[in-house]
């Protein structure tokens, strides 16, 4: 045996353990061997855990000294969940606004229908006046009908005006939604910056703007400048025609 090798106490201990295990095998003490072997492996694993523990602590210290951990824990713990809530809010608010708008549009359509029916009433009244031209009540009858219809139309028109005004008002959501979206965009940019800093600090390179990544292979609504190769309805029609549709 080399003197320098034996001088290392850890190595000397390892060699001693292995010698004991060989002896146990030679005398046929399998149970004893297994126990010793398990203990041997366990000691090695402990060594590994100690090393990993040390590396983790060193990484943590490095991140803390670069102030990354504050930044990242802030982003992950608070700002990103915030951003998600904000986007949920935008989704909810735009959905409500759309339904409200459609409700008002339906009401307007009914009022327009009302006005149309009223003008039909007028036609009928004129018809009657014509038919009963000789009778003394024909003209006064016509005047009454016209009067009533005029009031009816004026009433419908006033309601229509009111609904249309509410309709315009219902678009106010866009201001709030727009502001919230702006905030979330800023947050996404700061996450982007933090990630790039972290990547650079760890020695990695940042690739140039990657292509848009589809989710499940789907790209979602086409956004100009972002969605690659989006086709128009005309293109879709042409493509389907080609395929025999």
């Amino acid at each position, binding site marked *: 045996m080399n003197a320098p090798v034996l001088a290392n106490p850890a190595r000397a201990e390892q060699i001693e353990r292995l010698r004991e295990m060989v002896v146990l095998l030679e005398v046929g003490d399998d149970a004893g061997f297994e126990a010793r072997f398990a203990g041997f492996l366990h000691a090695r694993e402990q060594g590994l855990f100690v090393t990993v523990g040390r590396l983790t602590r060193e990484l943590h210290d490095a991140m803390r000294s670069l102030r990354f951990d504050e930044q990242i824990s802030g982003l992950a713990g608070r700002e990103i969940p915030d951003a998600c809530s904000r986007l949920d809010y935008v989704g909810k608010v735009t959905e409500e606004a759309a339904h409200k708008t459609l409700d008002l549009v339906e009401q307007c359509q009914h009022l327009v229908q009302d006005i149309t029916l009223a003008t039909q009433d007028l036609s009928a009244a004129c018809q009657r006046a014509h038919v009963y031209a000789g009778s003394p009540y024909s003209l006064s009858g016509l005047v009454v009908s016209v009067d009533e219809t005029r009031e009816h139309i004026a009433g419908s028109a006033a309601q229509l005006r009111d609904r249309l005004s509410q309709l315009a008002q219902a678009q106010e959501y866009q201001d709030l939604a727009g502001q919230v979206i702006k905030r979330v965009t800023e947050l996404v940019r700061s996450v982007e910056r933090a990630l790039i800093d972290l990547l650079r600090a760890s020695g990695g390179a940042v690739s140039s703007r990657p292509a848009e990544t589809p989710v499940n292979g789907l790209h979602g609504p086409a956004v100009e400048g972002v969605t690659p190769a989006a086709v128009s*309805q005309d293109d879709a029609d042409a493509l389907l025609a080609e395929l025999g549709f």
Partner: protein
Amino acid sequence: MDKNLKILIVDDFSTMRRIVKNLLADLGYTNTQEADDGKTAWPMLLAGGFDFVVTDWNMPGMTGIDLLKAIRGEPKLAALPVLMVTAEAQRDQIIEAAKAGVNGYIIKPFTAVTLKEKLDKIFARLAEAA
């Protein structure tokens, strides 16, 4: 074309379902029902009685393309006309839908005119085939 056609509208966004329902009503088709996902639409279709399906593609439970494939794979529903109304505007998606047997493909945002055109075209072809 029989305006009493029973139509199933499938989309995970309630506003879109409402808009399609209104447009169909404007065109005279008032016998409509709604489903908020391919997953909820499927049992409704199996229960029977539907003559037409208008569906979105991207839905969380069961996508429109999977619903279409399921329809074409089920003997008693295989001939059901399916119109896809979706934001997906990629060639690959259109080709996949065509291969799966879609009858029409509309890209969002769309106009009432486009919807009418595609519906009329589907009905014309069905009449030809009959």
